[in-house]
């Protein structure tokens, strides 16, 4: 039976993990390769690397990181953050990334999704959608690291991305991100019902039960989180054991 996936997310700046990682037993907690290898050993199903570097050296350091991770890691990983062209995607895939996620560039020019899917196959094209809830307008899509409201309805945009050939949706609720109050079950469920491709839920995970809820109530295919894993608040193995007890299929 296909299992639900647990995906730790690593924020990368200048080739290093940021957002604070407090792990015992890692000689250098800022080294993304060491952290990735640890997560893989603990049973992570996939990893996401989100590059937030703003410098001109961004591309070179990211490519070097992708090579190092691919060389070391025997589970799949996605790379995202400021990826905007076919050439960007090509160099990352050639260096060993399994999937590439695009966000602002896809909203600026949605045809990019078609071009990437045709060129590289849908299986490696993830569309990351950042959504925020508004009292009057419902869930709207933001770009440029959450600073720009596109005015697009979240479900409509995710459906368009799927129709254009995306292989997966990485849906982050900005309204829940960092709250640890749980995933946004309503929008995750609405998107999951509206598209025929897998949906990764992100933003708000604080407890093991939050993952049970997003899989059972919102039908997410995968759950992504950062800080709860980085700070060791929840171990991946204990999370998966909890899910299995709740009757959710997981790889243990």
């Amino acid at each position, binding site marked *: 039976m296909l299992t639900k996936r647990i995906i730790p997310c690593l924020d990368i700046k200048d080739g290093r993990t940021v957002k604070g990682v407090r792990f015992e037993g890692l000689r250098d907690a800022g080294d993304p390769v060491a952290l990735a290898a640890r997560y893989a050993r603990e049973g992570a199903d996939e990893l996401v690397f989100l590059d937030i570097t703003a410098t001109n050296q961004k591309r070179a350091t990211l490519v070097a990181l992708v090579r190092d991770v691919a060389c070391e890691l025997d589970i799949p990983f996605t790379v995202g953050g400021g990826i905007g062209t076919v050439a960007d995607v090509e160099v990352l895939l050639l260096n060993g990334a399994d999937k590439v996620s695009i966000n602002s560039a896809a909203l600026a020019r949605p045809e990019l999704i078609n071009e990437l899917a045709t060129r590289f196959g849908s299986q490696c094209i993830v569309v990351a959608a950042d959504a925020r809830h508004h009292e009057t307008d419902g869930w709207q899509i933001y770009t440029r690291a959450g600073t720009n409201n596109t005015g697009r309805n979240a479900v409509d945009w995710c459906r368009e991305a799927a129709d254009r050939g995306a292989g997966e949706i990485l849906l982050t609720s900005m309204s829940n991100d960092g709250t640890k109050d749980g995933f946004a079950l309503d929008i995750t469920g609405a998107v999951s019902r509206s598209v025929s491709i897998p949906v990764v839920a992100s933003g708000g995970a604080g407890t093991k039960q939050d993952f049970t809820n997003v899989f059972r109530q919102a039908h997410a295919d995968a759950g992504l989180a950062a800080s709860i894993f980085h700070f060791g608040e929840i171990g991946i193995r204990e999370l998966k054991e909890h899910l299995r007890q709740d009757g959710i299929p997981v*790889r243990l």
Partner: protein
Amino acid sequence: MDIAVIDYKGGNVQSVLFALERLGVQAMLTADHDVIRRADKVLFPGEGEAASAMRELRAQGLDELLPTLTQPFLGICLGMQLLGRHTQEGGGTDMLGILPFDVVRFEGSPEHKVPHMGWNTLQALRTPLFEGLQQEDYVYFVHSYYAPVGHYTIAQTEYPAPFSAAVQHRNFYAVQFHTEKSGPVGTRILENFLKL
């Protein structure tokens, strides 16, 4: 041991090269017919779209060469599907015809999304390729098309109906999942292949 990894611009070959490196073996990424013919083992990875992959194989004459190979051969993901006769992908595409299966698309449903993406279990394992594995071991899949179960099937997986997770005919072995991305289980399968 000389290992040839076939280069036909079929996607993520780097991961396969890295996986072999982790096992301490150096592989040659090549489309050179003589190098491929002389290799002790041949790996045929692939991702992406079947019609463009077939165009590239034909352009390099590999569609003629591959069926004549006699050393242990391992197709991975699209590299497995291309060994079949025909696929629905790309509006219908004829393929290498080394194995007698026709590749079809998953129908998909709200409970069974397409692509079939993630970790799923193996059943009905046979042949030395799966030496040391357990039934229900997990491997990583990403695909929208599949080969049905037949006499050539040496491992199967359910999504929701059973399909071929691995196939074999003579020296030609192939797996639908990504051995190079399937953790210790995938590594064991690659090791087993290198011992064939």
